[in-house]
């Protein structure tokens, strides 16, 4: 079956520092990877969508300068939270799908970021 692993599961970083999180797809080709942030008040905020052979598309309020994403192959993606502050706290979820098979998004368990 299709599985998505994210690591680390949780991390703490000091305010102003950066933190990288990774996403690994197993059992399918992750032609499209969506990064979300989940917080109690804002449910799932789409940060950006990365599709092979296309530019990474960032949603309003999120930028490449703040959340650079790498999607080098069909099984891996990473995202860094640069210069993290309190408002960046939350659960960061990676969802991946095989667009060619029109499959649904499979999500990982997320990386919980705490900023102190």
């Amino acid at each position, binding site marked *: 079956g299709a599985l998505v692993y994210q690591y680390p599961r949780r991390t703490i970083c000091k305010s102003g520092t950066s933190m990288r999180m990774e996403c690994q797809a197993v059992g399918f080709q992750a032609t499209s990877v969506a990064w979300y942030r989940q917080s109690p008040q804002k449910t799932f905020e*789409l940060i950006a969508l990365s599709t092979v052979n296309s530019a990474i598309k960032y949603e309003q309020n999120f930028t490449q300068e703040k959340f650079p994403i790498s999607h080098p192959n069909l099984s891996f993606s990473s995202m860094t939270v640069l210069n993290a502050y309190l408002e960046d706290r939350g659960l960061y979820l990676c969802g991946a799908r095989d667009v060619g098979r029109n499959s649904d998004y499979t999500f990982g368990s997320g990386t919980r970021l705490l900023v102190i």
Partner: protein
Amino acid sequence: QQQVRQSPQSLTVWEGETAILNCSYEDSTFNYFPWYQQFPGEGPALLISIRSVSDKKEDGRFTIFFNKREKKLSLHITDSQPGDSATYFCAARRNNYAQGLTFGLGTRVSVFP
């Protein structure tokens, strides 16, 4: 403005009852609607989905009813079990090449034995 709305925010049912979760959307170009189930500490898992060409989708105890004209859908969980206690998210997207999902705020369901 919330593009996908869910109600109620929380729902409590007894074991064996039917839980009804509601969802509505704004964007008429949305044509694919998955429901995700999320347990504490885990990521959301796809439960059931429907395309806008259908008005009903059934999978075991889970059924989606879809009303395109009113831009509403609902998830019915029949014979609810304590293991169904989770947060359920309605999501939507356009079924084309590459689209992210737009999620609602979720409905927290508690099933008491």
